[in-house]
């Protein structure tokens, strides 16, 4: 895959940008299994391997379960390991996701978000990564191709930080981001290598002079203690996410935080939304601002760990908030981001009204008019202080 760059810029799809970032990171091992819409990541990376552009060993496994199993074996052996998947592939990995995080292995996975069956559907929603939200993986969400590229490079540093030692999942929207071409700024190979640094695992199965036993059985005497340490590690990884973003900004000028606020500071009503649909929502915010409505947006970038304090701080003065989820918890009480955000706001002195709106499942379009309709509802809620419908599906 030849990438044509003009002044450091190139027109790339999300998948190509991810594959290119992987080429620049040059991991030791990449176990992978193809699945729509992330297939092109692996295809393009395979061509980098075939052309000798990387020194990575590619393992074309026979399933995603084996992909994550091989990631675990390779990471336990001290290799820097990356893979990519979507939807059913992530679902099939589910068992192994918990083992990767429980064993504190800094594996990097790109999840190109796609709906889960049934009915079978290849298009975007966040059911796959939301299904893995309690698996102990750090989750970074990406609005654009640029952010997906930048997130993947930062993910390596976050995962391998010695205070973290956890796997990281970088999420971007299937087709919308993975297949759309965007003009993005690429780093040079040297810049990427300089940023991620060389990985030297502290404990490895290949150190035969110091044999280690990994994955031992743990009974009630100590299981909870391992989980406690893991819980502490993912909670403090938030600081590492910020530290790595700071260094990234210092070196390359692009700024990232735990979330993005768009015209949020003085907003009275706000939509909270992940990934590409934030772009659509920003257009709606601009249109409504022209009409004098104090609308704003908050787009979480870090969803795991959930930065509940920072999000509550950013939203505590709003009158009404709609959390738009591209996944349903099937709990009869709204989407996953809604549930957590509403809980995060419980302790603020003057709780805003918070409603759940589920949109875009299985790739259903989410348009500017849909965002505007939600803002109109929020306006009424803000004015009356009354919530008519706490949760509902939109775009249907």
């Amino acid at each position, binding site marked *: 895959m030849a990438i044509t760059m003009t002044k450091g810029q190139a027109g790339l799809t999300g998948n190509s940008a991810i594959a290119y970032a992987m080429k620049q990171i040059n991991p030791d091992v990449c176990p992978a299994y193809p699945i729509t819409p992330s297939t092109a990541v692996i295809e393009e990376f395979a061509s980098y391997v075939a052309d000798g552009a990387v020194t990575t060993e590619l*393992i074309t496994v026979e399933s995603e379960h084996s992909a994550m199993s091989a990631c675990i074996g390779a990471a336990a052996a001290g290799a820097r390991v990356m893979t990519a998947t979507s939807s059913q592939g992530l679902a099939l990995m589910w068992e192994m996701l918990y083992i990767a995080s429980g064993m504190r292995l800094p594996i990097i996975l790109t999840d190109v978000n796609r709906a889960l069956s049934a009915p079978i559907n290849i298009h975007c929603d966040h059911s796959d990564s939301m299904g893995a939200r309690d698996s102990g993986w750090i989750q970074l969400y990406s609005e654009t191709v640029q952010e997906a590229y930048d997130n993947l490079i930062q993910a390596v540093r976050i995962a391998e930080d010695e205070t973290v030692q956890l796997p990281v999942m970088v999420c971007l929207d299937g087709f919308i981001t993975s297949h759309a071409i965007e003009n993005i700024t690429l780093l040079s190979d040297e810049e990427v290598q300089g940023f991620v640094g060389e990985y030297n695992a502290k404990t490895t199965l290949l150190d035969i*002079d110091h044999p280690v036993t990994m994955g031992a059985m743990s009974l009630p005497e100590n299981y909870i203690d391992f989980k406690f340490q893991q819980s502490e590690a993912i909670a403090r990884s938030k600081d590492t996410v910020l530290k790595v973003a700071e260094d990234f900004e210092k070196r390359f000028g692009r700024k990232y935080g735990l979330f993005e606020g768009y015209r949020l500071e003085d907003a009275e009503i706000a939509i909270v939304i992940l990934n590409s649909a934030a772009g659509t929502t920003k257009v709606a915010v601009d249109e409504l601002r022209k009409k004098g409505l104090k609308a704003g947006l908050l787009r979480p970038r870090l969803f795991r760990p959930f930065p509940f304090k920072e999000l509550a701080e950013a939203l505590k003065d709003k009158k009404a908030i709609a959390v738009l989820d591209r996944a349903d918890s099937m709990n009869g009480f709204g989407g996953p981001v809604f549930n957590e955000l509403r809980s995060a706001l419980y302790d603020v002195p003057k709780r805003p009204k918070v409603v759940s709106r589920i949109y875009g499942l299985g790739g259903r379009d989410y348009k500017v008019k849909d965002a505007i309709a939600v803002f109109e509802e929020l306006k009424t809620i803000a004015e009356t202080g009354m919530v008519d419908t706490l949760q509902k599906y939109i775009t249907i």
Partner: protein
Amino acid sequence: MATLKELSKQNELLTGGHRLCSGCGIPPIVRLVLRAAGGPGGATTATGCLEVGTTIYPYTAWRIPWIHSAFENAAATISGIETAYRALKKKGKLPGGDRDIKFIAFGGDGGTYDIGLQALSGALERGHNFLYLCYDNGAYMNTGIQRSSATPFFSNTTTSPAGEAIPGKQEWRKDLTRIVAAHKIPYAAQASPHNWADLSRKAEKALRIQGPTFMNVMSPCPLGWYTKPEDSIKWAKLSVDTCYWPLYEIEDGILKITYKPKEKKPLEEWLKPQGRFKHLLKPENRNLLDKFQARVDLEWQRLLDLDGKRI
């Protein structure tokens, strides 16, 4: 091949003090295989007796690098380890320098014949350099003797109980060794711990040969077979002498029977002492016993027909 005396002087790589049952076939099998490696090795184990019995935290019986991750993925896990080894070797990043390391995946029959078959097939096809060793005790013994596809004909297990209407497991066992051989890997063999010399020679060969190799080893289980711990090796021997568990190898496609009993013993002699076949000895079940014997005879004849031939 090393003599018994030489083998006895080597360090134990799986220490005593583990929690596997008295009379379990697994520890002697693992110790013989690790000794046959004759050099540094790393291993993974599928969830099961061997994993549970050797590593309850904070203890470990393993003196080699070892990992367990899940049940169905020993072959995929070892694929990752072996690939990381090649990747880091290429970059000159192996701890302690450039050394040859042997990789072994251990799994029971449940973890290999059943839930781990896909991962095993994938790893064999991809040609990783490792030995997969299946210890076949004929059921999911770790979780309380449930039927697997390796369970013998008519065996009484907790999920194929010998009941009033159905007399135990109704299906013939899966011929995993031949399924593995169909992947055209360089080496596959069946062995039994009663014949340490045959087992050691096969393990040595399997670990010397480049590419994926496979061993399927009979592993007596006093718990699931309802036998006395002190008799395990005797019943392992009888499984071979009755030709229920033939010892053979397939090297570069040539099948060779490595042991032919001088006198083929009646199957009943092997079944009789095992509680799992108790119901077969009732007079009304004579036809089942005959059916079992006929099938063993047929399979043995099939093997004899292939002896020395390219398959």
